[in-house]
């Protein structure tokens, strides 16, 4: 049996065409390396995760006792809106983008993504969108809810914050759609020789499904946002009830995106769990093909369930029934996966690392959220608990108990591949217990609050409602979660400096990313690995005759050069958006806003977009 030390190491100089990397801040601004882009997504996501958590802590403090006066109702609405927007678009999605960037090329044995500069463009669009969204705090944050229902977002009811919100989301949509196209091409065209579609790791499969979801579900909400922007800036009548506009139009466009988006948030964690459980159970994933097809099926059906968010909107019994049935059907592939994961652990030789602890806790926590989801899929029940804390409990079990817990597992598992060092297991266990206990303490009682009639989105409640004690419990739980997150951040920072060196393959894993150094060289692999099974590295180490062999001829490696061009195009796009925002400002206190400054910037930036794109294409890569 070969051990990891016997991995073929190229001693002979490889014929590189790796361009000299610039150093310092320039190397980050011009990078097209998927691993560096992954780190930037990861750092930004962590920052926004903390920001979104802070927003939640403030309004949890307000809710801890009845008739509290810590913040006003308007501030409360703004914090809730920004908490959800931040967590969905700026924390969980970029964490998934970070994992996609790091893992898709490494796990399929590629040197980079199909379009490295487009990848950098996606990153800058994300950074720009998140900054525009958070800049709204300076001028009055949006307070219409993260789903921005019409006509609440109209000029009559909302201020300039919604302009920042809508334009920021358009930028984030651009980022996600371009990344989606890029990764789809990467997975289909850049797989190492021998890596057939059914040998592609489950993690990559789940990430691929979400890229399809991103590419195809963002356009409807982009249309909805464009209509909203036209309504707010140019006086169209799409969401104006007085002109015959129908508020349900926005709901359809939003949820046609919004529900696939839910699977964008959860499928990466399902992928993580499908990688972590087998490695720490010393068993292959039970029914791998079934898990893959279940993920694809969830993605497809995810496009046909959006109106279950709108049962109280009055669509009629036929539509309600159809969407109810489609929603319940999704429980089948999800259940299949849960049993496959249980089958994987069954009889395994389990090592309870922190990654494994998070992965195993994912299963029951996500199942709790999934079961209340099946309950909510029934229109009669949904009509009763709609907009109550029962719904809040449901989606927080899915998104925190599911998505976040799964991503934590992935964080502990792949942190060595990012940094070359292991995270502290001792601190990790403290983080685990604090976070999981805090999570259940916060969200489990909210099922009861909902059934007792506590509605969502109220900034306070009277003492005789009898919700005081349970709300205090929820707030204490939130503080425990925050303490756990603090331990996580400390662990991440301290481990980057002082953590134990990981080596190539600290977990004795089976997928290709552990074949190469931690962190990998810019070109990922010294030679293109030839894949002979769905567990190439495991077979290399443990199955005679299945070693990954080094080719006799060194390969010529061509890596793309660092480039400023993605940043220039992004700046032109951002200039256009900022110009549009400026038309809403009134610098001199006149009756009308000073639109011409904004229009001037828009025209200049609009002209710069094709110019910068031309320079981009012209640049040799």
């Amino acid at each position, binding site marked *: 049996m070969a051990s990891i030390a016997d991995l073929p190491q190229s001693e002979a100089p490889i014929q590189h065409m790796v361009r000299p990397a610039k150093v310092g801040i320039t190397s980050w601004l011009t990078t097209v390396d998927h691993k560096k882009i992954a780190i930037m997504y990861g750092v930004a996501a962590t920052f926004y995760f903390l920001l979104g958590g802070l927003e939640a802590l403030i309004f949890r403090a307000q809710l801890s006792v009845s008739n509290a006066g810590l913040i006003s109702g308007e501030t409360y609405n703004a914090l809730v809106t920004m908490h959800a927007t931040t967590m969905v678009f700026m924390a969980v999605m970029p964490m998934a983008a970070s994992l996609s960037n790091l893992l898709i090329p490494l796990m399929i044995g590629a040197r980079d993504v199909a379009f490295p500069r487009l990848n950098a463009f996606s990153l800058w669009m994300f950074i720009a969108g998140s900054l525009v969204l958070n800049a709204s705090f300076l001028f009055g944050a949006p307070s219409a809810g993260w789903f921005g229902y019409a006509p609440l977002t109209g000029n009559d009811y909302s201020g300039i914050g919604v302009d920042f919100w809508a334009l920021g989301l358009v930028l984030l949509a651009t980022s996600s759609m371009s990344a989606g196209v890029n990764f*789809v091409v990467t997975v289909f065209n850049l797989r190492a*020789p021998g890596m*057939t579609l059914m040998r592609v790791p489950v993690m990559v499969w789940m990430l691929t499904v979400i890229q399809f979801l991103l590419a195809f579900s963002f*356009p409807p909400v982009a249309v909805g946002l464009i209509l909203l922007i036209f309504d707010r800036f140019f006086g*169209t009548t*799409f969401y104006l009830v007085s002109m*015959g506009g129908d508020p349900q139009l926005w709901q359809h466009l939003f949820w046609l995106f919004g529900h696939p988006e839910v699977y964008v948030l959860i499928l990466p964690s399902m992928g993580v769990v499908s990688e972590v459980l087998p490695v720490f159970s010393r068993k292959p994933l039970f029914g791998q093909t079934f898990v893959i097809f279940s993920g694809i099926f969830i993605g497809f059906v995810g496009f046909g369930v959006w109106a279950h968010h709108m049962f109280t909107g009055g669509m009629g019994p036929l539509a309600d029934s159809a969407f109810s049935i489609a929603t319940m059907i999704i429980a089948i592939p999800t259940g299949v996966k849960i049993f496959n994961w249980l089958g994987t652990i069954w009889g395994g030789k389990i090592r309870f690392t922190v990654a494994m602890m998070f992965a195993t806790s994912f299963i029951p926590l996500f199942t709790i959220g999934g079961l209340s989801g099946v309950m909510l899929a029934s229109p009669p029940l949904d009509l009763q608990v709609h907009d109550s804390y029962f719904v809040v409990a449901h989606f927080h079990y899915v998104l925190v108990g599911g998505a976040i817990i799964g991503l934590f597992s992935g964080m502990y598992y792949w942190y060595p591949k990012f940094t070359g060092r292991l995270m502290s297991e001792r601190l990790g266990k403290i983080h685990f217990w604090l976070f999981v206990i805090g999570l259940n303490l916060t969200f489990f009682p909210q099922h009861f609050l909902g059934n007792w009639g506590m509605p969502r989105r109220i900034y306070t409640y009277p003492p005789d409602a009898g919700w005081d004690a349970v709300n205090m419990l929820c707030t204490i739980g939130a503080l425990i979660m925050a303490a756990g997150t603090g331990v996580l951040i400390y662990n991440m920072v301290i481990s980057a400096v002082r953590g134990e060196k990981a080596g190539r393959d600290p977990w004795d894993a089976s997928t290709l990313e552990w074949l190469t150094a931690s962190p990998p060289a810019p070109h990922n692999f010294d030679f293109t690995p030839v894949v002979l099974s769905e567990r190439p590295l495991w077979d290399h180490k443990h199955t005679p005759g299945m070693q990954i062999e080094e080719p006799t001829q060194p390969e010529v490696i061509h*890596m793309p050069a660092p480039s400023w061009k993605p940043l220039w195009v992004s700046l032109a796009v951002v200039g256009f958006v900022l110009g549009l925002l400026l038309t809403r400002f009134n610098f001199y206190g006149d009756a009308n806003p000073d639109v011409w400054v904004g229009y001037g910037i828009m025209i200049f930036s609009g002209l710069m977009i094709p110019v910068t794109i*031309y320079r981009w294409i012209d640049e040799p*890569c």
Partner: protein
Amino acid sequence: MADAALPHDHHDAHGHDDHGHGHLVENNFLGLPNLKLAMWAFLGSECMFFGSLIAVYFFYHGLSIDGPLPADVFSVTVTSISTFVLLASSFTMAMAVDNMKTGKVQAAKLFLLSTAFLGLIFVGFQVYEFQHFWLDKGLALQTSLFASSFYVMTGTHGTHVTVGIIWLLMVWSFIHRGKIKAGNYLPVEVAGLYWHFVDIVWIIIFTFVYLLEF
């Protein structure tokens, strides 16, 4: 790694020898170059985009409270001419790709310019149509649900045609400067995919939005 629009050597990671494991190493190349596959994925995304816009138009069809109705403003004759011009541009686009394939670079360049020119005429018709509806027929952007959804839908399409014109001119420029050489027809073909897509979207809009009113 091929990137952006000029893949002189689009990624060919599929010709490796199989290290003696031939039975385990199957060819996994799907047959489309990166750029073309990306274009198809992007067009799938665009289908959802235009699908949503057209759906919005029909969601509000007949629900306008005020202002002129579609049948009051549309002129099938005028729009038929502009539609014919756009259809003709798809022909010249196909000829550009074909000439590039067979190495007739000069003819390809000419056809690219003709396509861009026909596209420009189409956009000109649309500008005329918009100002005519607005100034002569009293259909401003803010007048009614019909006005808002019609202008935003067709305006978005017109923006796509404009982007296509700029794109074609860029491709022309790269051929002119020798950056795209004879035989490398992929960039022209991919621009053509986009152009034909935008044309097809217009055929759908013309049929369902204009013709079905009469």
